C-alpha cells in the first residue's frame, strides 16, 4: 500500500507518494498558478504515471496547503501546520522549531519532544517576511530569484533594508541602487530584513534546538545564513525543502491507515467540476 500527500501552496503544488516503510517513492513539484483547482488532478496523474501505480493502490490521500479544499479525490484535508510538522519530524526527529518560508506566507511551528504541535505562529497580513518579498525585490534588482542567495554570499558591506513593508522596501532598494550600493550588499540586506522579521515572529514561540527551515526560503543559502545569524546557531534544511508539507500529508495518511481507518470507497480521480 502507498500513501499520497498533495500540498497546494500559494505558488507551488507538491505531491509526495510514500510506501509502507515511509520511503519517498515519488515527489513532484510544479507551479500552482491561478487554475490550481485543475492542477491537483494533473500532478496526481503525473505522479502515478511516473511511479507506475494506479489510483486504487493509494491507501490514503491527504491534501494540505491553502488549496487543500480543491482536491476532490483526497480522503482528508489537514492543515499545513500539522503536515509540515509531521514531514519535518520524519526527516529530523530532534526538531523542535520549524520555520517555513513560503511564497505568500511564513510560519513558525513548535513541536514537543513527542513531535506534537504545541504552538504555532503565522505572518500577519503582510508580504514582508515571505517569498513574495524576495520576488518583488529580485524583479526590482533585475536578477533571477534563484540568484539572490548566491549573490548575497558575496556581500562586503551589507545594506540595511526595512523589513516592515514590501512596497517601502522596494522603494528603499531603488534608492540604494541610485546611491551606488552593490547588488550583493543589497541582496544580503534583504535577507537580513526577512530573517529579522521571521525570526522575531518565531521568537514568540521560544526558539529551541533543533531549528529546521523549510519552504522556498530554505533553498536560498543567503537567507538561511541570515536566519542562522539571528537564531545564533546552525539550522537544518531538508534535502528538498519544498516537499515537507506534502511528505507530512502522505505520512499522516499512513498514520490514519495504521489506525485502521479506511479511505472513502467512492473516491474518484477527477478534478473539481465547478471551475471552467
Amino acid at each position: 500500500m502507498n500513501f499520497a500527500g498533495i500540498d497546494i501552496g500559494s505558488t507551488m503544488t507538491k505531491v509526495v507518494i510514500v510506501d509502507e516503510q515511509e520511503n519517498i517513492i515519488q515527489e513532484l513539484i510544479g507551479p500552482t498558478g491561478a487554475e490550481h483547482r485543475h492542477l491537483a488532478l494533473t500532478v496526481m496523474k503525473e505522479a502515478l504515471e511516473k511511479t507506475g501505480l494506479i489510483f486504487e493502490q493509494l491507501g490514503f490521500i491527504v491534501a494540505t496547503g491553502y488549496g487543500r479544499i480543491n482536491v476532490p479525490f483526497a480522503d482528508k484535508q489537514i492543515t499545513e501546520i500539522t503536515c509540515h510538522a509531521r514531514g519535518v519530524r520524519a526527516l529530523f526527529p530532534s526538531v523542535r522549531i520549524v520555520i517555513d518560508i513560503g511564497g505568500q506566507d511564513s510560519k513558525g511551528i513548535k513541536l514537543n519532544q513527542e513531535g506534537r504541535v504545541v504552538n504555532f505562529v503565522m505572518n500577519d497580513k503582510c508580504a514582508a517576511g515571505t517569498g513574495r518579498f524576495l520576488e518583488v525585490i529580485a524583479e526590482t534588482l533585475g536578477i533571477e530569484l534563484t540568484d539572490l542567495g548566491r549573490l548575497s554570499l558575496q556581500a562586503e558591506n551589507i545594506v540595511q533594508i526595512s523589513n516592515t513593508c514590501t512596497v517601502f522596501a522596494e522603494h528603499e532598494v531603488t534608492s540604494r541602487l541610485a546611491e551606488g550600493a552593490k547588488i550583493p550588499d543589497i541582496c544580503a540586506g534583504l535577507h537580513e530584513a526577512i530573517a529579522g522579521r521571521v525570526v522575531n515572529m518565531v521568537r514568540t514561540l521560544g526558539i529551541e534546538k533543533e531549528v529546521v527551515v523549510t519552504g522556498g526560503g530554505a533553498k536560498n543559502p543567503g537567507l538561511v545564513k541570515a536566519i542562522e545569524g539571528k537564531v545564533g546557531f546552525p539550522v537544518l534544511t531538508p534535502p528538498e525543502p519544498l516537499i515537507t508539507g506534502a511528505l507530512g500529508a502522505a505520512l499522516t495518511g499512513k498514520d490514519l491507515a495504521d489506525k485502521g481507518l479506511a479511505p472513502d470507497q467512492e473516491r474518484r480521480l477527477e478534478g473539481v467540476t465547478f471551475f471552467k
Partner: protein
Amino acid sequence: MEEREPAKTTATKGTDAARKIRAMVKNIYKSCHEAQSQGKKVAYIMVSSQYDEILRAMDIVPLPTENYAGLCAAKRDMDRFLTKAEEDGYSQVLCSYARIGLGFDSLRKELGGMPENAPDGGMPLPDIILGSSGVCDPRFKWFQACGRFMTAPTYSIDVMHPPVHCDLNAVRDHYVQYQKVQFEGLIAFLEKQTGKPLNKDRLWETIRLGDEAWRLWYESDRLRTAKPCVMPSQDHFNVMVPAYYYSGTQEAVDYFQDLVDEVKYKVENKLAVVPDEKYRILYGGGLPPWHTMWFFNYFESFGAVFVIENQYRGFDPVEVPDHVKDPVEYLAWRAFLRYTARHEQAKANSGNPVVEKILDLIQDYDIDGVFFHACRSCRATTIGQIHTKNMLGRYSDLPMTQFVSDMVDLRDYSEAQWKAQIHAFLDAMASRKK
C-alpha cells in the same frame, strides 16, 4: 441603488439571558437621553473604574463610551468615526475605542447635532466626564482630549494597582487610604456638580446591589465548569453589560439571578452549546473582536466551544472585613482586595497573577486549548500576551494561539488568515487529544 444586507457580525448565543442584552444596551443610551430631559446628570464613564456605585447613589446616569465603540463595531458603523478621529490627527495606533469616541464627539460637534442614524440613537453630550487610571492611560487621556469638543467638567481618579511582590500587610493601609482619598475627591466633585450631598445609606444600598450582582455573575461562571458547555464565551461578552453598565442597580441583580437559574437548568439538563463537544477553549485574553463575533460560531461548527474567558471578568468576589463601617472606605478596601486577589498565589508559584488565574481556569474548566486575541490598538490587553503565553507554556502543554486584529477597527482583520489559523489550532488540539 440596490440595498445590501448588513454584514452579520454577531454570534448566535447559547442562553436566553444573553439574548436579552441587546435591549439592555439600547436602554443605556435611551436612558441617557431621557435622563437629561428629566434634569439628571449624564456622565461619560470608563469600565472598571470602581466608582459605579457612587454614581448610582448620586443619581448620575452612566454613559459608557467604550461600550459605544463596541456597539458601533458590532453594527459595522465605525468607519465614519474612526476616519473622523484620524482626520483630526489621532494616530491609527491609538486605542480604537478612543478613536471612535473622539471621532463621534468631533462629528457631533461639527454637525451641531447627532450624526445621522448613529447606532442606538447616539451618545448625548455629557454633563460630566469621569475618567480613571483603571486598566490603561487612554481612560484619562481620551477624556482629557474630549475638551476639544465639549465643555463638560472632567474629573479623573487614580485606581490602585499594587505590585505583585509587595508585602500586602505592609502596604494595605496605604493603598486603602490612598484609594479612599481618590473616591472622596470624586464625591466632592460630584456633589458640586449635582448640588446634592452623597447619601451614605443610599451608597451602602448601591454597593449591596453591586456586590450581589457580581456574586451572582461569579456563581453563573462557576456553574459553567460543567460539561458539556451550556453557556459559551459569546454569551459572556454580552452578559458583562449589566455587570459593568448596570452595576449598583436592582435590574442587574435580577438579571444575574435569571442567568444563574437558566445556566443551572441547562447544566442539569445537559443542554449543550454544540451536540458533540470535542474541544473546550479558554479565551485567554485580549478584547473580543466586536466586528466579527461570529467567529465563535465558526469554531463551534467544528465542535470547539469557548467555555470560559479571562477578559471582561476581572474580579472574583472578595470579603471586606467587618470592621469597615464607612461605604467609601468599603469601596477602597474592595478595590484593594480585587486588585491583589491572586498576589499571594502568584508569589508562591509563577510570580504572575494573570498566569495563575489562567492556570486555575484551565484546570477548573478542563480546557483543551487557549486562545488569545492581540488587538493592535489595545496596549493594555495585548502587551504581555506573548510573555503570558510563554509563561503558561512552562506549566501547561496545551496548544495556545494568538490571533491578531483589533477590537473594533476592521482594517486590522483578515478573515482568510483567521480561518487558516483556526484550522491549524483545531488540528493542534486534535493532535493533543489523540
